[in-house]
């Protein structure tokens, strides 16, 4: 797991479950099949797991189904958690795998990024040569950025969410997605370029409405 992802995961891991019930205790007891301890773990991690699923799929119903599947897998596999990484890191990797498996089954996108995630030419980022525009800095807020991410083509969105939001490194993404590191880098760059287009477009639309 990448450095950034670890830092974010550790922050979550410091949370406590119910009063007088730490996350470590909840994990230990859930390993023994304690339903209440498992419920505490669900309470601690449901928001991040759901957000990950929602950002990766861009669909509320799918995200809920995948959150459910991720926690069911957690219940079945928690006994194999050895504490080599933070629990939240482990759970998030498990959740990412659940989402990727689902997307593969749907055929969107397939395992090989090289073939299936490559968007059509007209869908790709436009070359920005010879045109100067105002920079984005200071002009986008969280809502606009979330909306633009939602509008990314699925292949771009997945790489962008995994790398720039969740903090995974290219080698980890390549391993999870079954593509080359170079391809992960290239898709991320195209995703950011596409986001830039979308954000500039939304800025123009907002200005026109005023």
């Amino acid at each position, binding site marked *: 797991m990448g450095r950034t992802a670890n830092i974010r995961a550790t922050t979550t891991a410091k949370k406590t479950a119910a*009063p007088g019930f730490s996350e470590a205790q909840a994990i230990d007891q859930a390993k023994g099949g304690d*339903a209440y301890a498992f419920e505490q773990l669900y309470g601690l991690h*449901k*928001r991040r797991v759901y957000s990950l699923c929602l950002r990766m799929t861009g669909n509320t119903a799918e995200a809920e189904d995948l959150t459910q599947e991720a926690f069911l897998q957690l219940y079945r596999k928690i006994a194999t958690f050895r504490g080599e990484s933070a629990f939240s890191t482990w759970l998030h990797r498990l959740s990412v795998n659940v989402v990727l498996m689902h997307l593969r089954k749907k055929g969107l996108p397939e395992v090989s990024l090289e073939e299936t995630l490559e968007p059509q030419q007209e869908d790709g980022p436009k070359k920005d*040569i010879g045109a100067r525009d105002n920079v984005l800095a200071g002009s986008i807020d969280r809502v606009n950025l979330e909306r633009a991410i939602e509008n990314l083509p699925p292949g771009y969105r997945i790489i962008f969410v995994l790398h720039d*939001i969740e903090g995974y490194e290219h080698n980890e993404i390549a391993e999870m997605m079954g593509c080359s590191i170079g391809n992960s880098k290239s898709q991320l*760059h195209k995703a950011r370029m596409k986001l830039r287009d979308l954000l500039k477009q939304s800025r123009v639309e907002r200005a026109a409405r005023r």
Partner: protein
Amino acid sequence: MKWGESKIMNCAEFQKVLPYIFETGGNTDELEHLKTCPICSDLVQDLRYIADQAKLLLPLRDPSPQVWDNIQNSLEREGLVKPQAARAQSAGKKKIASRE
């Protein structure tokens, strides 16, 4: 061009290698182009800004309560937890936790 001689880069060449410039920081020619070209400089600034803003995004919201109900029902159906015992145990512990 002789070895060591600096080459003047154009925007197309710069933007072609841009993904690698983010990784490596760029070589002398690339940095020189960046310093003198406002278009590529704006582009790099925007892409960095997008990546920085993305890091600040927080988890969105909780799933609906239905998700937990479905999880509980599935666990019970699969026989991984006992229906009555699990709910009673959960309710009992909630009472203890709220007293603490």
